[in-house]
């Protein structure tokens, strides 16, 4: 059965694009052979299609801006460097080191000048002032700090001792007063009396720790000294 003119119109563009099946396109061809109107329309459509496609095809190639070529070259050189750098470990480490140096320099440069200026000016100021600086020092009555001192006998009793040889351990409190005493050796009652006087009339400087008076102990040995004559 032959196609109607209407069906032909419908298939026209598909026919021209070569998108119809063989049977369909042979039917269209048969119709064209008999129908002058459709043949004329077909010719017109074919011309129009050719013109349209050639117009599309003739759209000029737009030259890419020169700036694009530069951008692409820069991109390529970065990429080349990246690819090559990745291949060689040594160059990669070198690059890393250089980058670290650069970033260090960038970090330090804003600080370096002010810091160096500050140090230099402070040195200059100090050297100018150093000669005129005096430090008032008083070494007299200086309390030795930072260590401990032992109990010391300030002034011995004016009374002598005539008893047996004896060693005494005295405990001196922080006010320099005798807090306790103990005697070693053979001590008689008379000796004890003499020793009591001795202790009573002797004055002591108390022990100190870090400049503060504290309690401490002292050993006293008394000998009987015989003076001939």
């Amino acid at each position, binding site marked *: 059965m032959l196609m109607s003119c209407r069906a032909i119109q419908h298939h026209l563009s598909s026919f021209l694009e070569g*998108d119809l099946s063989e049977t369909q396109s042979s039917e269209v061809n048969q119709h064209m052979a008999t129908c002058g109107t459709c043949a004329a329309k077909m010719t017109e459509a074919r011309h129009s299609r050719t013109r*349209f496609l050639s117009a599309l095809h003739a*759209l*000029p190639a*737009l*030259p*890419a801006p020169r700036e694009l070529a530069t*951008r*692409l070259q820069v991109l*390529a050189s970065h990429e080349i460097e990246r690819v090559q750098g990745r291949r060689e470990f040594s160059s990669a480490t070198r690059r890393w080191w250089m980058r670290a140096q650069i970033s260090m320099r960038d970090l330090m440069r804003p600080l370096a000048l002010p810091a160096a200026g500050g140090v230099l000016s402070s040195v200059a100021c100090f050297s100018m002032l150093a000669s005129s600086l005096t430090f008032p020092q008083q070494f007299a009555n200086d309390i030795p700090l930072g260590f401990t001192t032992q109990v010391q006998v300030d002034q011995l009793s004016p009374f002598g001792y005539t008893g047996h040889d004896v060693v005494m351990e005295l405990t001196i409190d922080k006010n320099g007063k005798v807090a306790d005493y103990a005697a070693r050796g053979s001590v008689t009652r008379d000796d004890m009396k003499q020793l009591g006087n001795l202790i009573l009339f002797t004055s002591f400087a108390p022990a100190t720790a870090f400049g503060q008076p504290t309690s401490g102990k002292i050993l006293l040995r008394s000998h009987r000294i015989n003076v001939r004559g």
Partner: protein
Amino acid sequence: MLSYEDAQLIAGLREGVESSYEMLISRFQQPVYNLAYRLLNDSGDACDVTQEVFLKVFRNVKQFQGKSSLRTWVYRIAVNESHNRRRWLFRHRHKEVGLQEDFVDESEPRDRSLADGARSPYDRAFDREKQVLLEEALSRINPSFREAVVLRDVEDLSYDEIAEILQISMGTVKSRILRGREALRLQLTARISPELQLRECL
């Protein structure tokens, strides 16, 4: 699938050989820019897209397995990038203030490309008019049709290549091209009918 020349070029790119990079750029800079321009209709966007395409090519050349030709691969990246760009523009353009409204950058190279001593100024003006109309019509049709029509009728690629680039079946390629041309024709006739004198040229 890969020609010897392409394989050499790709090996060079992987090794970081400078001449290979230069060759790739000289071979594809113009076609990629052109394609991007046809798909986006803006010189600046086309430049950006071209740069993105080359960056992707450089970065992904290691993964390229050579199942398709180099040209198809590069074009596929270009089409995808243009597609992404268009979507991005669709989302962001309305927020932008057009600074370059009156900055007609592309007119200069277009005139240069038309320089043809044998043609009269009248013919050139006529051609120019025709191009403008076509380009406008192209920019107005559905993007997926536009991709197919541009690849087929402007870039002159085969159906096979287009199917590979767009990653669609042959049947879809054909139907998109057909419908794209139809849409283009409709756009053109809608534009031209008031100006009958121009009908002859199309």
